[in-house]
């Protein structure tokens, strides 16, 4: 493993690329599914291209400290742009490809970019449309020439031409090479490597400045932790402006010399991942969740025999799979053999379908993942782990070491990371990856960074008995019941939502006597369940109000209560009453955000009679709501909704003090 203390002193990415070209020139560095096949580039070719590119960019006027916007989906040439810019000491500023012109204009102007590199015509159009508002922008480069033939090319350049220009200059004389050598030496570890804009939930995006040292140290931590090396494959499909992609697909790739694969298009990621068979993967929980749901739904359509076989082996995997993966003792030989057989018949093929056959380690982060889902993947032999990270930390805050992997925690502090939890339960951390500051925003920087170098994460959490960190909610969302016990609504809701039958849950309780909750059933899952159990229904509303459905949901809620009771400080948040909503929460009605997040306040207002009923002890309540149908018409649906009382469990765990 390399560290920044390497005597050769490679402390920037261009230097590491040069090293890779030296150490492993023939190994594939990048692949891109294009024109039907995986076009490949070796480290030597990449090195060569980046050098030429840097010269070309220099010729276009890019200088040390200049900012280069990079807009588009994951493409090798866009990653090379980062390296070429960094070679010259300029700062790449990746921008979300799907951001609208307005946001782009802000980021570009705020970062004062001089050059912008776009993936295709669409992004070029966007850039051109905002170029007036970005007076610093001089040149626009693009990767895919399609449709751009007739554009005015006075300030528009194909990347290939720029690279060719660089090649020509390098061939023409030693000046260009000298320049490259000079610039390479001039960059220091503490120099600004990249600015990543985070789309804050509120307000303008903030530009997180990370130095070479930040990014490199973080990447090295990750590589060392999971023993990544040049034989690994990763698929780059997450937005390049997101820190995760930058660390995984750029920094770690260059540090470990592994191969980055760019999918053909966002729609083909699944197939492309399957083709490549990545060994190292990252995906947000919803990706894993979707895969599992799809698996279950599809298996419903399989023949009876196959379904029984599937169930048998999945049950078996549930029993022993994780233990086998964790190399725990106490699994009988028979169970191991059976698991092997299951691997041949079920787990292996499943992993194959998911493209996870060769997976060494997979990460999920960003949100809590359902324990069932998490366990499922682990039990079939996918080494799935959670981590907790932030842009400001160059990702890594906590990680799960092998053998200590649990669904409900995000793991121990990552190497070289210190964590403390303040009196409000907010998590603070300090590490080599901690960022320089927000670009052109010292105020915000000061708000986030404590004088002693800790960063406020904004998340509430606690360490459990095993020393693992648990994140419960955004710090500002955590409320308290009247008796003062903690009420983290999202934590409770997530626990509910882990059941496939429950699509949404909205928990109430801040400042009230007890916790009560709205539940939205999942039509697909419950519909399937109903079909199997002979429950007939004519509408969603009817299904939602069906007593058997209530019974089923009650069981889920009961389980959630039991698990809450067993957790420190969470016992008070047990659900006393719940009801099943008669309609699906819908973004068209304003109940959800467009990203499908619950708008708690709006719902509370809209369903006020129901909330009232939840807290006044009545067993049912009437409600009528205006809804928007798919064709845009509006209508009113009225319903009488039943309410169930739940049993709560005595709190087992001692109420730990939050300050660890």
């Amino acid at each position: 493993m390399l560290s920044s203390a390497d005597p050769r002193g490679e402390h920037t990415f261009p230097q590491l690329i040069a090293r890779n070209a030296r150490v492993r020139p023939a190994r594939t560095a990048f692949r891109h599914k294009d024109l039907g096949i995986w076009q490949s580039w070796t480290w030597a070719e990449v090195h060569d291209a980046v050098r030429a590119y840097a010269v070309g960019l220099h010729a276009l006027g890019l200088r040390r400290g200049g900012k280069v916007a990079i807009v588009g989906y994951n493409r090798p040439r866009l990653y090379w742009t980062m390296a070429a810019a960094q070679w010259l000491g300029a700062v790449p500023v990746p921008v979300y490809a799907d951001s609208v012109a307005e946001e782009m204009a802000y980021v570009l102007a705020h970062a004062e970019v001089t050059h912008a590199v776009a993936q295709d015509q669409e992004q070029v159009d966007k850039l051109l449309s905002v170029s007036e508002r970005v007076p610093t922008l001089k040149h626009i480069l693009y990767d895919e020439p399609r449709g751009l033939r007739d554009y005015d090319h006075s300030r528009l350049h194909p990347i290939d031409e720029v690279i060719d220009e660089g090649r020509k200059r390098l061939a023409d004389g030693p000046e260009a090479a000298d320049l490259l050598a000079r610039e390479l030496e001039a960059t220091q570890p503490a120099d600004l490597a990249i600015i990543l804009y985070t789309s804050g939930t509120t307000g303008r995006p903030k530009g997180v400045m990370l130095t070479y040292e930040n990014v490199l140290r973080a990447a090295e931590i990750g590589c060392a932790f999971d023993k990544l090396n040049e034989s690994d494959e990763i698929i780059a499909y997450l937005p390049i402006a997101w820190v995760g992609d930058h660390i995984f697909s750029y920094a770690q790739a260059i540090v470990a010399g592994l191969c980055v694969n760019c999918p053909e298009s966002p729609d083909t990621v699944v197939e492309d991942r399957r083709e490549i068979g990545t060994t190292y993967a990252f995906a947000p929980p919803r990706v894993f969740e979707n895969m599992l749901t799809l698996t279950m739904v599809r298996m419903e359509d399989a023949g009876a025999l196959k379904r029984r076989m599937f169930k048998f082996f999945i049950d078996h995997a549930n029993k022993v799979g994780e233990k086998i993966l964790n190399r725990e003792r106490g699994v009988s030989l028979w169970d191991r053999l059976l698991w092997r057989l299951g691997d041949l018949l079920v787990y292996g093929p499943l992993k194959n379908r998911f493209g996870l056959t060769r997976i060494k380690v997979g990460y999920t982060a960003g949100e809590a993942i359902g324990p069932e889902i998490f366990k499922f993947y682990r039990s079939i032999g996918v080494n799935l782990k959670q981590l907790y990270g932030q842009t400001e930390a160059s990702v890594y805050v906590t990680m799960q070491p092998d053998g200590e992997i649990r669904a409900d925690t995000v793991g121990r502090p990552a190497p070289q990371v210190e964590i403390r939890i303040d009196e409000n339960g907010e998590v603070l951390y300090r590490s080599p990856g901690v960022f320089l500051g927000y670009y052109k925003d010292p105020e915000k920087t000061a708000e986030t960074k404590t004088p002693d170098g800790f960063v406020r994460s904004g998340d509430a959490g606690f360490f459990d008995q095993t020393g693992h960190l648990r994140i419960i909610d955004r710090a500002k969302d955590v409320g308290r019941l009247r008796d003062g016990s903690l009420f983290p609504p999202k934590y409770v809701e997530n626990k509910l939502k882990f059941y496939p039958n429950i699509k949404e849950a909205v928990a109430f309780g801040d400042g009230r006597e007890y916790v009560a909750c709205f539940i939205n059933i999942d039509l697909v899952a419950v519909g399937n369940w109903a079909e199997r159990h002979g429950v007939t229904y004519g509408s969603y509303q009817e299904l939602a109000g069906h007593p058997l459905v209530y019974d089923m949901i009650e069981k889920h809620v009961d389980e959630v209560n039991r698990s809450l009771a067993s957790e420190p400080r969470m016992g008070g948040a047990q659900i006393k009453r719940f009801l099943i909503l008669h309609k699906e929460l819908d973004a068209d009605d304003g109940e959800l955000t467009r990203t499908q997040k619950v708008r708690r306040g709006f719902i509370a207002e809209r369903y006020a009679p129901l909330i009232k009923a939840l807290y006044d002890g009545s067993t049912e309540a009437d409600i009528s709501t205006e809804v928007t149908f798919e064709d845009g018409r509006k209508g009113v649906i009225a319903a009488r909704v039943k309410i169930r009382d739940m049993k709560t469990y005595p709190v087992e765990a001692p109420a730990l003090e939050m300050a660890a």
Partner: protein
Amino acid sequence: MFYREAGQYKTSYAADMAVFPLREDRIGLAVIILAAYALAFTRNDFLLQAVMIPFLIFSLAAIGLNLLTGYAGLLSLGTGGFMGVGAYACYKLMTAFPEVNVLVWILLSGFFSAAVGVLFGLPSLRIKGFYLAVATLAAQFFLQWAFNRIPWLYNYNLSGAIEAPLRTLFGVPIIGPTATAEVRYLVVLTLVIGLTWVASNLVHGRIGREWMAIRDMDIAAELMGIKLFQTKLLAFAVSSYYCGVAGAMLVFLWYGGAEYTVFDINQSFFILFMVIIGGLGSLIGSFFGAALIFIMPIGLGIALPALLGPFGINVGAEVIEQLRFMIVGALIIFFLIVEPHGLARLWQIAKQKLRVWPFPY
């Protein structure tokens, strides 16, 4: 189930256009070929002589007809005749030039049937479909007549039959009474594998695309610069070549001698069954079809008495034969109903199922 596609990515067009792009398929094929060769060492004469050798030869003939009917869309009922041309040409050549190795003649004899095929393919420019099929019947009946009536073709043998004289390869008899079933099986297997490989190359390249183009939409094909006539004739030539070689192999590597009746209209139908049941436009289907049409009745002949025996029903050989006919007929209809596109499609579906295993789709 056995597919582990993850990690099988193609970085070149050559790899992407390979006939078997998936590693598991390549392994499977290798295993099948090895097993096929291993079969020779079972020394089970019944298996080799009565099952495997004819199965392979008929598969080759079915491939030949499939190239014409399945790929180029030209229905032919003259397969038996074209096979006969190969057999008689081979006989003439090998008796006229005994010093040249017989394998050369087997492979060359196909060119004669190709020429005859082209001749009878000439009407295909003007006539199509069933009309063309009946036109090929003219070839069938004329050729059959010629094999019987032109004594020069069978060297004026009094028996009117052509017989396989002793011929050796590296000193081992491969043709003639002393050639063991194992040796002939190995020769047949090797020839069939080689020729199948060539057929696979053809259908996966420009020529195969042109054939399929005229099959699917001949007018559009012509307007794209494909010369219909040449392409159709090429299909006739290649198809007849395969049939001819199969015919020569049939006589010299299986029967050991034959009368002209071997190449009668029933032979043509027999091969056509194989092609259709196996799947039009599929090489592997030709093998499946040959297996079903040729091996299944043999299996039934063995299985039926065993099945009926325990029930005390002891029937004569002819009842078995009649039941065999009925079952084969019913199965043909059954398979057509279940999968009109032939066993090859079932195979594809099965493969697809294995690929998406455990999912149903």
